């Protein structure tokens, strides 16, 4: 070493690039690449949960690191804002549930097709935004499959007969539970058969059931069976009342058992409309615990907890 200048020159590159970040060649998380890519930083400012995408959609991680802001990200978010009327606060939920939407291979004309299809079936613009907010995966879904399920819903095939629904009814069913659209027709057929065989309903009763509570076509058949037996044995329901109060199938069995047992211990468990002291089951089983207790006249949850501790 002859000169300090030579020594300094060799270290100049090191000092100028002291803030260099080392990137691994392979990783299962996006955390190493966030410092570098501006697109991921902009996603974080919107509020997208990257740790959830790593668990649920690991096949999209390659695509997300290679995103470009101007060419890939911007036009798709602008499409959501202009065409569908979605606010920037709501982008986060949509992208966490459907990151495939940002894939440059999924071009915009495919989502335009879906929107055109819904408008051709006479869904209003507000209804379409509602569907997209509640079911973001429909942005990457195939139009042909949606057509098949909607067609099956309108002519709902039960063992020997086709139940014909009108267009207004089908639209209302889709608005009340949009996740019907991503189900295959065979899955819906299974639940329809279950309603016919183990509940023992007639065809017009099945029609009424599906219009009052369309989500019954999505629930698990084992849970449905247990809830049905509970309603018939403990709550003393006929088939007519099961259809009338079919919203109760949304609640879990444990919740129904606890609340029904509590009402029984108070002596106020009366679900027949003719009798004195009638309590409608929908008001009892389709609300919070605090609302439930205020309806009965209590201020605390203590009486219900004290009853559950005796089980």
């Amino acid at each position, binding site marked *: 070493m002859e000169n300090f200048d030579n020594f300094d020159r060799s270290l100049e590159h090191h000092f100028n690039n002291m803030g260099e970040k080392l990137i691994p060649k392979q990783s299962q998380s996006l955390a190493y690449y966030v410092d570098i890519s501006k697109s991921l*930083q902009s996603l974080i400012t919107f509020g997208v949960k990257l740790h959830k995408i790593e668990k649920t959609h690991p096949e999209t991680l390659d695509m997300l690191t290679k995103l470009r802001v101007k060419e890939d990200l911007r036009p798709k978010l602008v499409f959501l804002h202009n065409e569908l009327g979605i606010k920037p606060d709501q982008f986060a939920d949509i992208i966490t549930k459907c990151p495939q939407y940002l894939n440059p291979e999924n071009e915009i004309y495919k989502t335009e097709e879906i929107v055109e299809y819904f408008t051709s079936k006479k869904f209003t613009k507000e209804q379409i935004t509602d569907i997209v907010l509640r079911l973001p995966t429909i942005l990457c879904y195939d139009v042909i499959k949606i057509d098949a399920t909607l067609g099956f819903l309108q002519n709902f095939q039960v063992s020997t007969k086709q139940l014909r629904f009108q267009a207004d009814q089908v639209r209302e069913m889709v608005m009340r539970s949009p996740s019907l659209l991503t189900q295959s027709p065979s899955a819906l057929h299974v639940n329809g058969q279950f309603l016919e065989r183990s509940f023992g309903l007639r065809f017009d009763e099945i029609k009424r059931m599906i219009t009052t509570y369309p989500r019954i076509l999505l629930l698990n058949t084992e849970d449905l069976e247990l809830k049905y037996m509970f309603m018939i044995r403990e709550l003393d329901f006929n088939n007519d009342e099961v259809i009338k109060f079919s919203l109760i199938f949304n609640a879990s069995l444990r919740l129904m058992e606890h609340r029904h047992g509590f009402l029984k211990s108070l002596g106020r468990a009366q679900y027949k409309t003719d009798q004195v002291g009638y309590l409608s089951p929908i008001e009892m089983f389709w609300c919070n615990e605090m609302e439930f207790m205020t309806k009965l006249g209590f201020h605390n949850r203590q009486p219900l*907890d004290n009853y*559950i501790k005796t089980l």
Partner: protein
Amino acid sequence: MSITAPQAYRSLKGLFAVYKLPNQSHTSLIDQVTTQILIGLNRLEQRPPKCMVAFKKLSNVTNEDFTWRVNQIVKDSTSSALISENNLSIPTNVVDWFDHPLVQGPRYTKEDLVWYTGHALDYEASGVQILGLQNDGEKMLGIVGKKKLGRTYEVKGRFGLATTTYTQEGKVLERTTWNHIKPQQINKALSLIQGAHRNALYRAAEMDLSSNEAYTAACKGTLKPRKFLGPLFLNIKLIEFSAPEFVIHITCLDESCQSLRALVANIGKRLYSGAVCTKVRRISDGIFSWDDEHTLLSHKLGGVERVIEATRDSYSRLLNDPRDFTSKRNRKRFPAADIPNKDRREKSPLLIAASENL
């Protein structure tokens, strides 16, 4: 001022009791409790995201980066000349996206909570279940478990059946009548069993029963055997008898839920008919009972602060119990509670005088 998450996490330790519902396995109970606590912890105020050190040149440094240290470096005449001449760089704090909560996820996960349990309940049984959190819970459970405090159960049975598994879901061995049974006959059978078990306990206590020590120990409840003799039913009482169904309260040592069901079948045999157990429910486990406001429902804990209050309540109860949990040896194992330091050795007057005169 509400609690911050690190404060809450540090104070989540010790014992507390949970009411378990029937037809639930032990692993699902612990999953239920952990998810509720983690939801509560991750909602509280978290630590701020960590910063990263980046080296910037003087021209790129902004007003926000001018901390006290950077100011010192820049204002010194010698160092400022060096920096400007040779284009050297200054260390500054920079936002680190790596540690953002949306990238890393929730700060507290399942691995941060370690559970230890007391005597475990069956799948079909319900009642009070003690749970211990972190290292302190393990130590306290070891201390409380050695003092064999009795557990009381409420057992419901039904005359008229005898099965293989002592429940209604087993294979039926015989069906019998029960019209001849009266409550005095049941009480007689129960007192016979109770007396036999108590005699076995007194014989195995390895103490001279005519001495004063044995009397004081029996009054306190510490006259317990060291060997394992099997399930001991020390106190059996009939509470309700309505037609074929009956309810009894049992206090026992070294028992299991299946042994209680076998007891019910034994009672039926003694009364010349068959009996079957419909329900096993634990009313109290040592200090914890189902009546307390601090025994929490497993599916509805009520927040992290309620769990912390329950652990603190169990501390105070163990310290104030007259059954001597806080021997000198155990006082060191308990975490710092409101105990005055009485163990200091008194100095002799010679040492005091010597230290004063120096």
